[in-house]
């Protein structure tokens, strides 16, 4: 889409995930006066969770860089202005001077995407729900993660569908005790969640350990699952980076944890101090280290994968999509070969967290694979 002749388009601080309140501008990629095309990454912003790029929504000329590097701004604040050259400078300046940051606080406006919880057999399970109508999508994070791993994805998917994101048992704000840490037990919790909270068949999207869990849910209770999207999933081959798991569990401080977490990403600069601090906060909750240890021991003994799920998944007869970062250091992308009939999206410039590093491509793929809603409620 090209900016309409004579009109002025504002680039504003986006809201990546429900907890984002603002961000700090790090780098501009386009010079003032330079051309931008829709979809182009115009500047980088660092939020408390992660660093990311802001894309231009329209093509035109970047007439003003309003925000300067280092500046911290709230969500919705003006970053820059795109307009074609027919717009006089005075009009651009007037637009900048008159720009009012709109309140984009979703919680204040609509009461949601509030955090909810449900009591399951194994204890409290925490989740969020965003969007309405369309298909039902359930996002399942991986080992040591939480529902914030989807902060670049939930809003995009919720524009068309109803999107649930959950904290697995032992993670996030769910109950931390994990008496049975097998993938089977976690799959039972996810299936119980889907049966209790969600109605109808769901599109499961699982990352890493969550990808293994989603395969198990589909294999054990096929009636619950309409499709599977597996992002760098476990269960498709014998290898996993066992050293990473041990380093993540053992990390006692910022330095050790940062060294471990950077292995997840292709671009290590996305790992911010706050991201590391947030994971430390989780790891320091009493019982979490033991839960993670049990999880690793039950599912990845001797630094390999205990459960091979590919044959069962291949036989499911539902659509299966696979997304993998070519630079994945945790679970090798070559495992994708174990599911020859799955649709495959291999991404450059992504490690083990493609839904964060290549969020746009991942969101488009998931939306495309799920397709338009079959029934609109």
């Amino acid at each position, binding site marked *: 889409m090209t900016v309409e002749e004579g009109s002025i388009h504002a680039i504003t601080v986006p809201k990546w995930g*429900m*907890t984002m309140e603002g961000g700090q501008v790090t780098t501009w990629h386009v010079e003032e006066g330079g051309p931008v095309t829709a979809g182009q990454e115009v500047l980088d912003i660092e939020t408390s969770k992660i660093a990311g790029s802001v894309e231009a929504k329209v093509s035109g000329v970047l007439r003003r860089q309003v925000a300067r590097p*280092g*500046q*911290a701004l709230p969500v919705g604040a003006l970053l820059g202005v795109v307009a074609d050259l027919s717009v006089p400078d005075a009009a651009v300046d007037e637009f900048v001077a008159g720009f009012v940051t709109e309140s984009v606080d979703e919680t204040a406006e609509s009461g949601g995407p509030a*955090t909810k919880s449900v009591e399951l057999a194994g204890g409290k399970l925490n989740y969020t729900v965003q969007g309405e109508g369309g298909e039902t999508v359930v996002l399942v994070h991986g080992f040591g993660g939480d529902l914030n791993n989807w902060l670049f994805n939930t809003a995009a998917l919720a524009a068309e569908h109803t999107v649930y994101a959950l904290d697995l048992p032992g993670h996030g*704000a769910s109950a*931390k005790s994990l008496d049975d840490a097998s993938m089977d037990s976690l799959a039972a919790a996810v299936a119980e969640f889907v049966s209790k909270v969600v109605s109808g068949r769901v599109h499961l999207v699982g990352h890493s350990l969550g990808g293994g869990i989603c395969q198990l849910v589909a294999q054990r209770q096929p009636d619950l699952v309409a499709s599977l999207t597996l992002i760098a999933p476990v269960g498709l081959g014998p290898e996993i980076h066992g050293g990473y798991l041990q380093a993540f569990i053992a990390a*006692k*401080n*910022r330095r050790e944890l940062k060294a471990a977490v950077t292995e997840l990403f292709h671009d290590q600069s996305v790992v911010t*101090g*706050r991201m590391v*601090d947030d994971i430390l*906060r989780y790891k*320091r*909750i*009493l*019982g979490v280290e033991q839960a993670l240890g049990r999880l690793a021991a039950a599912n990845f003994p001797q630094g390999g994968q205990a459960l091979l799920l590919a044959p069962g998944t291949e036989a499911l007869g539902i659509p299966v999509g696979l997304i993998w970062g070519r630079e994945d250091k945790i679970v090798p992308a070559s495992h994708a070969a174990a599911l020859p009939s799955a649709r495959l999206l291999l991404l450059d410039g992504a490690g083990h967290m493609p839904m964060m590093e290549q969020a746009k491509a991942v969101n488009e793929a998931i939306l495309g694979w799920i397709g338009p809603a079959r029934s609109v409620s």
Partner: protein
Amino acid sequence: MARIITMRQALQEAFLHLMEEDPRVIMLGEDIAGGEGSPGSQDAWGGDMGLTKGLQPRFGKSRVMDTPISESAIIGTAVGAATCGLRPIAELMFVDFMGVCFDQIMNQAAKFRYMFGGRAETPVVIRTQIGAGYRGAAQHSQCLYPLFTHIPGIKCVIPSSAYDAKGLMIEAVHDNDPVIFFEHKFLYDSARDDVPEEAYTIPFGEASIVREGGDVTIVALARMVHVAREAASVLEREGISCEIIDPRTISPLDEDTILESVAKTGRLVVVDEAYPRCNVGKDIAALVAQQGFADLRAPVEVVSPPHTPVPFAPELEDAFIPDAAKVADAVRRVAGWQRGGGK
């Protein structure tokens, strides 16, 4: 998502967790329940600031004890009980009163591990209030933590946030050495932040990077962390980016985080509400002068009150406490400093 509570609530959650977790944990202090030995209402106070209210009815008088007004009795009992296997949390209302029981801390609790061949442990936590700003006059307003930091064998904890207070309190009671836990009275209700419902710990000797920045490092403790944040917001609009580091514990001190930050910024301002001579600010300034000299691009500034007892006159007390304007001035001085160019 976020669960915002005050430092008061965070500490109450820590006490509740600790008392439930381990029957060896006991609490004692003046009026920590309130009403002991007199007719009428029991548990009337819950401590001078109400932090321990509700604990005596729940855990009984054998674990939550009102004591006489005798600092020596409180600390002597707590230190003795700790050496015999209990894990006492003693409340000594104001740090200003520590002089009365200083020998028991300085020469007894701090020394046992070292004088009995490492075979004696003293897992006692002494809670006490610090800080000016409450019109409490010279004997109820001091920040005397430098006195305790000076003594080896004692760990000194000074939280600035609700999150830190809860995690550090649980860590303090789990620790096997004497810990003095300094609570800034101004922060009980004004420090509000996101705190997990569950119990968690924060290791001693790990500074918190409260704010990341590239131009000037500000190291601050307790209430001064909030003053530094206020200054940093003002300075940001002037184009000066501040990194704020809160050591959280000053014994042990996370020297690495401070030195790494100064290696990045080359400029240091330390803000310390304690009297200026021999305070923590000077200690950190000396650390950086010795070990980070090559990184420094400007002299170190220490922002502290003047060397005088805390004044009672409200106008003077307000002028005594370092504020954001003083911190911002110090940051501007180091940011603009040039060799040979004066200030």
